[in-house]
């Protein structure tokens, strides 16, 4: 008996030792030997790295008007396993979601293969619609709550959803552009991932984007966050706001006048740029064809291009300002120096003028836009020196404006020129430039010879309002002497007179300086066409103290036969823009118009505020 009891006790003890040794072994294995492995496995199941999304910065005009900003939206998702009646639920939410009931029902009825059992079961994550406005999302949440069984109410077996969580909402943001198509090419847009792909959205991506934050969180077995177990955390750094040099008041004027002109002339493309010549700030930039930034789907690629910087065109006679400024700057001629213009036809290079001139002054060469006179000025300079001046004015290289996709234009070096190139390039042939290059070159004449970097971004400020970066005026180089530029400027004032080629560019009350351009286009075979022109006008006002330089350019305008000239098509558009812009900017008039129609010039200095 005693032996039996003792043996039982021994067996029991031995059994317990074995069992507890097993437990201990497992404990040591779990807690010590394979601790790291199990910890990481547990972490993988329960710990998530939650991304805290940074808000993209806004884009504003010079006065702080929002041009691009974010709007919170939701992505509506459904858990079909919690929906009892797909058809009824689809009928409830189809209206607010603006999705056909049948399409919605098809989405909700989707079945997926279970990873654990291998059986087909309702899908637990179905994206119903993206970019749903907050108000609609709230409406849907209320519908889902009403369709679920009420906690305190009587149990109804016929509830449409078994839980309000059948519908979920994921936070998202979309980029909105309050002005629609205004300034579309400059602003650009973002892709589906919120990254800038065009315009300022792209060039200022690194400032606008910000930096996402993160937080390590643990979830319980039903997926709820266990807040006390939050781990490492870093706040998101929101993107900076980008302030442009664009003045939306001027932009609106430009867009309206351009739209009117486009309706009238139906050109292939058209561009208008306004620039402040003292700083290089771009005040307005509009291009046609354009598109609505908020409705981009289906917009052809050609409409998305910012032709002010991506398209190159022969500048035509507007290029004569470079030739004249170079000749004057080199002191080869004076404004009153007489040049023989071959009575309208220069035999050796087969160059014609629109009207025959014998001897005319350098100033008159610009005023009358004499091709032969300009070619002779360039010939005096010589190939190399003329080429250097052309390069100095910024042709043949990118201006460096903070917009993506800019091209440098075409300007061949002298060793690639033909014998007559020296007579063609001075009048804007055999050379191709972007509209921005032309307006930048004219700004250099307007400000006394300083080529400035065109600025589109004025400053970058962070979310607290502190300035992160400022973009002051940046002089690239001096391109001509001040005296030469003043002489060219005086000649350009005469261009916009009744004797000049751009009398329709005149702005009542102001002295305007400018130059017209009319370039024939080439066909596919490289031959000059006689019905396709690039017509332009580039000028500034007030001529002696310019507030802005403006360029109007039309590619293949449908004007009446014999009227497709820069002075007849582009100049009047400049005049209307100039008049409205002068009024908008509050510019003081520089000439008085008397009741009899005669004009009296006013000294600009007397018009400044005392």
């Amino acid at each position: 008996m005693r032996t039996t009891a003792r043996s039982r006790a021994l067996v029991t003890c031995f059994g317990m030792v074995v069992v507890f040794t097993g437990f201990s072994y497992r404990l040591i294995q779990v807690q010590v030997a394979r601790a790291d492995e199990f910890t990481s496995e547990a972490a993988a199941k329960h710990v998530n790295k939650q991304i805290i999304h940074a808000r993209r910065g806004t884009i504003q005009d010079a006065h702080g008007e929002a041009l691009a900003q974010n709007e919170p939206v939701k992505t509506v998702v459904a858990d079909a396993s919690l929906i009892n009646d797909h058809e009824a639920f689809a009928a409830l939410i189809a209206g607010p979601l603006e999705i056909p009931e049948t399409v919605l029902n098809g989405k909700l009825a989707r079945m997926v293969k279970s990873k654990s059992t291998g059986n087909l079961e309702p899908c637990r994550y179905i994206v119903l619609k993206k970019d749903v406005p907050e108000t609609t999302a709230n409406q849907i949440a209320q519908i889902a709550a009403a369709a679920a069984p009420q906690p305190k109410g009587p149990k109804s077996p016929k509830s449409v959803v078994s839980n309000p969580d059948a519908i979920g909402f994921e936070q998202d943001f979309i980029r909105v552009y309050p002005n629609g198509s205004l300034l579309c090419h400059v602003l650009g847009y973002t892709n589906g991932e919120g990254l800038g792909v065009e315009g300022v959205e792209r060039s200022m991506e690194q400032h606008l984007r910000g930096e996402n934050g993160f937080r390590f969180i643990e979830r319980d077995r039903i997926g709820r966050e266990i807040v006390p177990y939050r781990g490492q955390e870093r706040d998101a750094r929101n993107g900076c706001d980008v302030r442009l040099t664009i003045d939306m008041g001027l932009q609106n004027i430009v867009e309206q006048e351009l739209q009117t002109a486009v309706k009238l002339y139906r050109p292939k493309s058209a561009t208008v740029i306004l620039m402040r010549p003292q700083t290089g700030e771009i005040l307005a930039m509009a291009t046609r064809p354009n598109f609505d930034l908020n409705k981009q789907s289906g917009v052809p690629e050609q409409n998305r291009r910012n032709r002010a910087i991506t398209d190159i065109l022969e500048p035509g006679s507007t290029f004569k300002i470079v030739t004249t400024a170079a000749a004057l700057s080199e002191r080869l001629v004076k404004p009153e120096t007489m040049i023989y213009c071959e009575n309208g036809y220069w035999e050796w290079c087969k160059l014609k003028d629109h009207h025959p001139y014998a001897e005319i002054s350098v100033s008159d060469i610009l005023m009358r836009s004499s091709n032969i006179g300009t070619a002779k000025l360039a010939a005096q300079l010589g190939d190399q020196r003329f080429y250097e001046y052309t390069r100095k004015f910024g042709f043949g290289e990118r201006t460096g404006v903070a917009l993506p996709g800019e091209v440098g234009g075409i300007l061949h070096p002298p060793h690639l020129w033909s014998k007559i190139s020296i007579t063609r390039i001075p009048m804007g042939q055999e050379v191709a430039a972007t509209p921005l290059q032309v307006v930048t070159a004219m700004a250099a004449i307007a400000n006394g010879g300083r080529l400035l970097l065109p600025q589109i971004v004025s400053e970058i400020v962070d979310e607290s309002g502190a300035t992160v970066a400022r973009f002051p005026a940046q002089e690239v180089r001096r391109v001509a002497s001040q005296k030469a530029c003043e002489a060219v400027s005086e000649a350009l004032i005469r261009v916009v007179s009744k004797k000049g080629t751009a009398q329709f560019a005149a702005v009542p009350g102001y002295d305007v300086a400018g130059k017209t351009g009319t370039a024939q286009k080439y066909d596919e075979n490289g031959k000059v066409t006689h019905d396709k022109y690039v017509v332009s006008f580039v000028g500034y006002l007030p001529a002696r103290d310019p507030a802005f330089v403006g360029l109007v350019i039309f590619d293949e305008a449908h004007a009446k036969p014999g009227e497709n000239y820069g002075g007849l098509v582009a100049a009047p558009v400049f005049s209307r823009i100039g008049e409205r812009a002068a009024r908008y900017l509050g510019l003081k008039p520089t000439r008085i118009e008397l009741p009899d129609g005669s004009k009296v010039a006013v000294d600009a200095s007397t018009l400044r505020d005392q």
Partner: protein
Amino acid sequence: MSTNKRRHANSVPIASFATWAVIGLFACVAGLGYVWCKNQLHTTGGRIKTLERELTDLRNKNEVARAHIAQLSSTKSLQDRFDTGFIKLAKITDDRIVTMHQKAGAEAINELRAVSNPGGRK
């Protein structure tokens, strides 16, 4: 007999019981306290989460309102409203616009000033 009985009576170690009782009580209180603290922590966590959600909702509403204000006050929207006559502003015709230089000082009276009236010219 009675002497024997007294000799064999077991003494109760009250002090020891009391010590263990205090230790047990302390352990209970500590355990319950721990549970209470944990509970509080989770309740506070839940409240933090709710507040965070409310804050996010408020921020979103604010963003939506800002976007709406920007939309309504945008140049394009104002121009459209002006064109359709929603903004009750009378369009000033060109013949009624005179831009003139306002010379400062009292001596400006009766002086000739620069004037531009492009519309009136037509």
